Structures are given as C-alpha cells and as structure tokens.
C-alpha cells in the first residue's frame, strides 16, 4: 500500500518584536515537546558545548541542580546551566563558527605593527586561519589543539599585553567623544549665561536710572550717565571675552601644532585679477564731429524746461535734449545717398545678387545686402 504524503504546508512564522528572533508556530522543544501554541512565551536556549537547543523550562528543570548530561539522544556531554544562552544567529552552524573564531581571536591577537614585513603578517594570518578552519570543520583536532596550547604557553604575556592595549584604545576613543560632547554643552551653557547676564544688567541699569530720576536728578545727566555706565560694562565684558578667546586660541595652536598634519606640495593659488568695470557700450563711443555741446542754450523752449522743477527733479538734464537734437541735426550730413546707393548697386551686380520676392502681389523687392 502506498501512502501518498500530503504536501507539507509552509510553516507560519513571525518575528518576536522584542528580540527580533523569528518564531514559527511549529517550534517544538526537542526535550519536552511543548509547542508555542500552548506556551506563547516559549524561549529557546543553547549551550556552546554541543549547540543543542531546548526550552527555558527544560533548562531550569534539568540543570538547576548542578551539571547534568545533555538530554538530547546521542549527546551525553555534561552541560552547566550558566553556559546556556540565547541563540544570536538563525543558523546554528554560524553560531558555532562565530564562537570558535572569538576563542581563536582572543588568543592569536597580534597586530600588524608587531611584524617586520607585510608578508610576515600575512603568513601569520594564514596560519591562524588554518587553525580556525581545522577547529570549525573538525579536521586534525588533536594536532590543532596541541598547536593552540603550545602557542598560548609560549606567548602568554604578550597575549595579555595586546589585550590590554585593545581595551585601552576603546576606552580612549569613547573618552574623546565624551569630551567633545561636554565641550559643546559647556559652550551652550556659557552662551545662555551671557544672555542672562546681559538681560540682568539692562534691567539693573534701567532700575538705577529710574531711581535716580525719582530722587530728583536732572533727566539728561541721568540718562547720559546711565548710558555711559552701560557702555563701560559692555566694553569690559567684551574685553574679558576677547582675552579669554585669545588664551583659548593660544592653547589650541599649541595642541594643533603637535597633532597637525602638514600637507606637502600645495599649489599656490593666484588671486584672479579684479574684473574691469563693465562697459555697456562694448567699446563704442559716439564722437560729436560737427558740433560741440554747450552748457546753456538760450532758446526759450529749453530754458523753461531747465527751470521747471517737475522736469529736473527726476534727474533729467536738459542738455540731453540739446545733444540729441544736435546729433539728429548732423547725423547723415556727410552721407551722399545717391553715390552710395549706385555704388552698392554696382557691387550687387558684380556679385550677381539675387533679388528675392517677399510674397507680394506685385513687386520683387531687391534685397538690401
């Protein structure tokens, strides 16, 4: 009899909002077989010895009384309760590998500065990777472990030193960040305090002036004195801040000089020449060749306008009108139309100019060129 297996439905899963772990409804503890359906807050823990997962309640039940054997069939390793932890990676193999790498890295923690050449450093890294690979895949476990222990025994002190250095670096970095934040906060505080001071002083001054006025002193002198006092206070304050800023700048330059880097080989930038003022006429100038413009023309038509405030208020100069009139009087005086047009006609004939028609009913227009 054949049994046709029903197609397996896809597991329904959703992500735990707190831990971000994907939880599927069919998660079942291999030990007690309790499912999430009955127990919504089911959590799985894992032991790095054998990487078998079981639910929290099983861990409590089995290992609370001391180390016991792993309950999964076929694995009898002794496990302790405190070594159980939440699985970080979905894939258990990845989890195992990461743990191994962490262990190896904790021992083999040399840096590049310790090696003379890059090649040596790379060889070292290669060896470390070999060991890691062997450990992960369980190849030559005995030999690898022996190498491991030999190294640890030989360079124990250095390992410790390196570890210390790493820790210190991390600490100093976070300390620097903290310092920056604090400085910013202080600056903000100082600014706020200054504002308050100013406001307070203004109030004081005003009160002082009022008091003096009330006690019957002359208004003007009181006002002047008040202003003088206020000004003096402001000047003093400004001088104080200036001095402080200078000190700060001096300090900064000290520290800067120690930690600054000098850029070699900067190109000296040449300042661009200042642009010449724009000439609106583009180099053209009109020259009066037939007349010289006078300052005053006695013709009454122009005299009225030059005295009329309505005309002159807007900046209009009557000489512009005179100039225009005179230019109009002479522009073309030396142009002899008959000769120039016959000349042009001859040139056109020589070039065999074509006369175009511009869409008229009657005439062809001779083109002007």
């Amino acid at each position, binding site marked *: 009899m054949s049994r046709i297996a029903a197609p397996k439905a896809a597991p329904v899963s959703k992500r735990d909002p707190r831990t971000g772990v994907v939880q599927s409804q069919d998660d079942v503890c291999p030990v007690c077989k309790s499912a999430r359906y009955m127990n919504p807050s089911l959590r799985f823990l894992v032991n790095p010895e054998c990487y078998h997962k079981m639910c929290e309640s099983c861990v409590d039940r089995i290992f609370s009384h001391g180390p016991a054997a792993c309950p999964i069939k076929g694995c009898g390793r002794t496990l302790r309760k405190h070594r159980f932890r939440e699985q970080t990676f979905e894939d258990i193999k990845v989890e195992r590998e990461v743990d191994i790498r962490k262990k190896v890295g904790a021992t083999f923690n040399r840096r590049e500065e310790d090696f003379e050449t890059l090649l040596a450093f790379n060889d070292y890294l290669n060896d470390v990777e070999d060991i890691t690979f062997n450990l992960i895949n369980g190849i030559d476990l005995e030999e690898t472990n022996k190498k491991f222990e030999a190294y640890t025994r030989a360079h124990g002190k250095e390992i410790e030193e390196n570890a210390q250095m790493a820790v210190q670096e991390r600490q100093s970095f976070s300390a620097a960040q903290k310092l920056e934040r604090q400085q910013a906060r202080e600056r903000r505080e100082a600014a706020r305090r200054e504002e308050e001071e100013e406001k307070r002083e203004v109030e004081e001054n005003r009160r002082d002036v009022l008091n003096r006025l009330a006690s019957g002193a002359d208004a003007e002198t009181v006002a002047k004195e008040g202003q003088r006092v206020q000004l003096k206070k402001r000047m003093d304050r400004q001088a104080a801040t200036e001095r402080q800023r200078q000190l700060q700048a001096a300090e900064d330059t000290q520290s800067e000089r120690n930690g600054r880097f000098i850029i070699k080989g900067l190109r000296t930038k040449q300042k661009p020449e200042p642009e010449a003022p724009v000439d609106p006429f583009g*180099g*053209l*100038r*009109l*020259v*009066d*060749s*037939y*007349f*010289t413009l*006078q300052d*005053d*023309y*006695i*013709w009454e*038509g*122009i005299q009225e306008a030059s005295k009329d405030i309505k005309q002159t208020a807007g900046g209009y100069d009557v000489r512009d009108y*005179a100039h*225009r*009139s*005179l*230019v*109009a*009087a*002479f*522009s*073309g*005086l*030396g*142009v*002899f*139309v*008959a*000769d*120039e*047009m*016959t000349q042009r*006609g001859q040139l056109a004939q020589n070039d065999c100019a074509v006369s175009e028609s*511009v*869409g*008229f*009913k*009657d*005439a*062809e*227009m*001779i083109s*002007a060129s």
Partner: protein
Amino acid sequence: MTQHLNEDDLYRTSSQYRLWSFSPEGLAALRRKTHELAITRASQYATKSNSYDGQGGAAVDCLTSEECLRLVQRYLDQVRTTSDHFKWPIPVKATAVQYLARFYLSNSPLTYPPKEIYKTVLFLACKTEATHMTLSEYARRISTPADEVLAPEYKVMQALRFTLDVRQPYRGLKGVLMELLNLAEGRVGEAEGVETGGAKALQAEMQALEMPPKTAQTMWRVKPAGKIESKDQMDRINAAYSAARTILDGPALLTDAYFLFTPPQILLAALHLADEPLTSFYLRTKLPLDSDLRPKILTTIAACAELLDSFSGSHILSKDERAALEQKLEGCRDPSTRDLVGSHAVAKRGGDGGEEAEEKARKKKAAREKHLKEGPAHSPVAKSSSLASG
C-alpha cells in the same frame, strides 16, 4: 579697443539708410518695375474677367505710371490733412506719409488702391510714434469700420519690411535753431577744425550778414532803420526757423526728398530756401574750408533745395481729378484684393483650405442651432439598455 563713431556712422546704421535710400535712377527703376508687374497682372485678370463676360479680349484701360504717382501723391496729402484733423504732432504726420510712400514703392495702386490703405497707414504711424489712439475711437472719428482699418495692416508691414523707423528732420531743425541763437548771443566760439575769430567775432559777422534775398521764404525783412540789434537777430533766426518748418511740413513730405537725401541735408536745404545768407554762414562755421566733404555737402544741399523748391501745391490732384482717376481705377484694379477684410479674417483663422473650413463651420453652426431648437431629449446618443456581460 574703443571704436569711435561720428554722427554719419550713426546714420549709416539706420534702416532708413540701409533699405529706404535710393539714387534717383534706382528709385525710378524700382517704380517702373513695380508698375510693369502690376500691368502684367492687370492684363491677366482682365482677360479672365473678359472671358467670363464673353466679350472680346480688349486691353483694359489701366492707369499710367504717371497717373499712379499723382494719385499716390494726392493721398499723401490726404494723410497730412487727416493727421492735422486729429491734431497729432508732426512726427506722426511725417511717419505716416513716409509709410505710404514706401508702401507704393513696391506695390501699385492697381492692386491696392490708396483709398483703402491710407487710413491703416495713419493708424500704424500713430502707434509707432507713441500717440496711440484706440482703434474704436479712431475708426469712429474717421468714419470707417474698425476691421477695414485693420485688414491691410499686415500687408503694409510686409511692404515696409517691418522697419518702422523714419528719420525726420524736425528735431534736427530745433537743434540748429538752438545753435544759431547761441551764435547770435556770442556764446559759440570754437568749432571743429574751423578757423574762427572767437565768439564775439562770429557774433559780429552774423550781424553783418546781408539781408535775405527777395526769393527767400522767410518773413523777416530788415527794418528801414537799418541797424541790426541782437533782438532783430533773434527775430531773423526764429523767422527762418518757422519758414523752414513750413517747407519741411509740405514739400519735403510730398516729394521724394526722404528717399534721395538724408534728414540733415533736407533740413539745411529748407533753411537754405528760407534764409540763404544765414545758412551759408552757419555752414561756414560748421565745415572747415579745406575739408573735401564741404563742396559735396554744399552741392547736395543745393540739389535738395532745388527739389523742394520745384514742388508746388498745384501739382496735387484736385478733388474732381482724383474722383475721375478713381473711377478709372475701379475698372482696372485687381479683383482679388477687393475684399481685404475677408482675406484678413481668413488669414487670421488659419489660411489654407479656407473654403473647407467655411463649410465645416457652417455645418457645425447648423447642427448646433438644430440641437438647440429640438432640445436634448432628441439627442442621438443611444441609451445603454443592455449590459454586455464581461
């Protein structure tokens, strides 16, 4: 880097110099060509119309080129009077007259009778010279429908080659007046390159000028007492100015002066006709005796003065003569330009396939009216009673 232009160079950049200046022979040739083209067209449409009527192909009696010219001149004068009727300043008048003259250099009265064109030209001139009057107001005052005024406008613009600037001598004449008055007062001393004895000497020279000859047009005549005072001097100058102005207003516009000479030459010619000694004196202070342009300028001015002088008011057609010519024109004009308003409307609408467009427009209109009459209930839209199953 700087390029120096003098006033003549400035004039050479103007469109009047580039497009609307001719030698006398050139001008005559252009007019002749225009007229010949018009005549050939006339014979074409004349034969067409004759074949419709079934008559023999007799040559139509067209206007001669002389008659065309005189008819155009009559309407130039008509433009002048109309502009005075509107009380527009003289630049408008001059511009309008020049537009009409330029239009008839490349078109013939046989195609576009001036009666239909001159109102448009005047309206265009008033727009150009910044004395704009609204179209409805203008049409009302000139007692013509507004679209008749507007219809030929684009053709006019084409004929003008879209150059609307007309250089005129009036402002220049004012400038000369200003300078002459200052000369008389003894204020003007130096002139470029001209040897003068200084301002006072010039003033004295002016006062010692001889009287204007009898043929001069100025009204000023020396007092019998004889001695010239500065006030008389001013009177003389002002009289010369007004006489010159009258000449510029009339003969200068109605002749071909604007085509053959430049505005300074025209105004100096008018001054020359008004008061010859004064003008010669003035030119003496302007042009150095040894310059090579001087004789040429003087001859040009003299030629222009002759042209202006040769014109007389009696040359213009009288009313009856004009009527007679227009009647003759009716018989020989181009029939396709009869309906300027219609062709303008068609051009505005989009031109090609005008007849089809008209048909469509008519059909649409008829359909719309029918629809309005019968009401929406009878609309041909089918009621969707059956729903097709998808």
